[in-house]
């Protein structure tokens, strides 16, 4: 068993891993940038090491600084979390060379699956369908148009060097083909300095359904069912759930087996996710391998809630060389879980990220609710990092029960001092098409604007009355005499300090 794990991350995922370490009796080492000196993760761990200035490129992305912190604290393992260095093969290799256990896949598996083209080839050879497409060797307009004709409309033009949706062009008819090729080339060149285009069949209204896998060092590869992540905006997931209403038992079994085949073919170890595009629903649906995420995912809690498996604990066990303690038949899905990501952003200003203080921050505590957060009241959302404040995960015996619990919890989740997407999430969870489960990856493109415009902006009378009570002087007067005995409680006296 590992003795001391350094967590090369920040925020909620660092807190998640620190708590798992504590549970297992493993010492934890946090690393922090100057912007995070007061952060929760830096206080919770048994040890904390400053690794540099606020900018990620000078701290959380700095391989040398993190390895130095691991050596200085004699950590025998590093957990990379997600983002930052988690999918950096060079970092995984550097850990291996330094004799530090990387709590994740082997460096060469990261490398193999990190290249979209190589990963696609591995999936294809493993007998797992991929979206038909190619990079024409001849990149002339004629050859690219020819490749599009072979696939049949609609097609998607993508920068081969790209990612994250930048520069992608959907083409639905012949007339738009040549102008779109020109524009896609221009955008690819501007964004990535390389105008090579990839042509792919476009799946209209697909669902994004991914399969969690975990593999040990003894040849056991298991899947832990699916997560439906179709609610995305600008390729960023907002809501994730398990199970997916689009899967039947037969389709679920086929996708699970396909995911295991890909992980095996990749020589994978530890936790990972195979992402699929799902075209249709039910037994007749078709699915296509998209890519593999060679790390723990942000949305891993929904899998934990429906399978009862603690994925971080399993990651640490696998990294310690232990065998996975289950067979595939022993992993079951029970009930339903929905995760919503709470972001510091302003839904009324095109989801502009927000930085600022959490003047008041109270997590809901109620049945079936889990909140994974890396912040506390009085803390700051920094301009330097991802604006995710927390993940709220609701579980219930049915999808509707989980959805209602998520709604009730969001209505009891005050976050003040900074704009958040909580009102937007409430509207989303109440949307008739979300309620009925008619999801696809374009859901927010179609419905987002209407959802945003429906958000209340005019404060109701109750809010104005509270605002009056918050005016300087008034609040103090109201408090007098109404909270007899409250001053005896040092905790509430502390919370009354005006920020």
């Amino acid at each position, binding site marked *: 068993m590992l003795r001391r794990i350094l967590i090369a991350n920040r925020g909620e995922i660092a807190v998640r891993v620190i708590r798992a370490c504590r549970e297992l009796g493993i010492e934890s080492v946090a690393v922090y940038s100057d912007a995070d000196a007061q952060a929760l993760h830096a206080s919770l761990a048994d040890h904390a090491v400053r690794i540099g200035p606020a900018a990620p490129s000078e701290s959380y992305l700095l391989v040398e600084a993190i390895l130095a912190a691991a050596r200085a604290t004699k950590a025998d393992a590093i957990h990379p979390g997600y983002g930052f260095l988690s999918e950096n093969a060079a970092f995984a290799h550097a850990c291996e060379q330094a004799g530090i256990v990387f709590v994740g896949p082997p460096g060469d598996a990261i490398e193999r699956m990190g290249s979209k083209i190589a990963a696609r080839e591995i999936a294809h050879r493993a007998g797992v369908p991929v979206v038909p497409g190619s990079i024409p060797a001849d990149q002339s307009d004629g050859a690219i148009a020819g490749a599009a004709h072979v696939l049949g409309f609609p097609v998607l033009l993508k920068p081969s060097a790209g990612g994250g949706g930048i520069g992608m062009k959907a083409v639905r008819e012949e007339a738009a083909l040549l102008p779109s090729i020109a524009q896609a080339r221009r955008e690819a060149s501007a964004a990535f300095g390389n105008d090579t285009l990839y042509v792919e069949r476009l799946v209209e209204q697909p669902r994004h359904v991914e399969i969690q896998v975990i593999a040990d060092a003894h040849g056991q590869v298991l899947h832990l069912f699916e997560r439906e992540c179709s609610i995305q905006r600008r390729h960023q997931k907002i809501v994730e759930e398990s199970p997916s209403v689009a899967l039947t038992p037969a389709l679920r079994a086929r996708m699970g087996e396909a995911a295991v085949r890909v992980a095996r073919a990749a020589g994978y170890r530890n936790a990972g996710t195979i992402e699929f595009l799902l075209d249709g629903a039910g037994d007749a649906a078709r699915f296509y391998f998209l890519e593999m995420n060679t790390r723990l995912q942000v949305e891993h809690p929904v899998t934990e809630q429906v399978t009862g498996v603690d994925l971080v604990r399993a990651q640490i066990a696998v990294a310690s060389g232990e065998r996975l303690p289950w067979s595939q038949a022993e992993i079951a899905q029970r009930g339903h879980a929905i995760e919503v990501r709470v972001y510091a952003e302003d839904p009324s200003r095109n989801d502009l990220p927000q930085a600022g203080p959490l003047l008041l921050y109270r997590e809901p505590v109620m049945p079936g609710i889990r909140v994974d957060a890396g912040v506390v009241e009085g803390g700051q959302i920094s301009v330097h990092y991802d604006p995710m404040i927390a993940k709220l995960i609701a579980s219930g015996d049915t999808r509707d029960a989980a959805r209602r619990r998520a709604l009730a919890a969001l209505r009891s989740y005050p976050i*003040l001092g900074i704009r958040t997407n909580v009102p937007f999430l409430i509207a989303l969870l109440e949307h008739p098409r979300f309620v009925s489960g008619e999801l696809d990856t374009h859901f927010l493109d179609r419905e987002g604007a209407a959802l945003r415009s429906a958000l209340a902006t005019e*404060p109701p009378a109750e809010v104005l009355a509270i605002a009056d009570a918050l005016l300087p002087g008034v*609040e103090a007067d109201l408090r007098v005499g109404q909270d007899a005995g409250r001053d005896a409680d040092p905790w509430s006296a502390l919370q009354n300090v005006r920020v």
Partner: protein
Amino acid sequence: MSASNVRVTSLGGGRYRVNDGTRQWLAHGVAAGDARWVFFDGGVYLIDAAPPARRKARHSHDETALASPMPATVVMINVQPGQRVAQGDLLIMLEAMKMELPIKAPRDGRVNAVTCRRGELVQPGVPLLDFE
């Protein structure tokens, strides 16, 4: 219903009980400088006590759409000097806090000059391109 029918009781720690005569609610509020924040039934409200003139100034700043609204990195420049663009065309893609912030043409027009570089960290309010 007017605010005068609403009874507010401070419970301490930023918690408030509000009663509108038909039912009661537990709400939260906090004040910081001119800003008063209220959380009520899942809604978040910012009541700004700043004089209207100042508030207006803040809003008009938002209309200068060709500058970044916050510190951000330029990830893509989609136009060249001299290029004519239509309203809504993507001109520049910024990234801040790991989120993409598209800068789009506010109207039909022409890009005279691009005053930022790909990969540059730009500050709020600093023009990214010259547009007319």
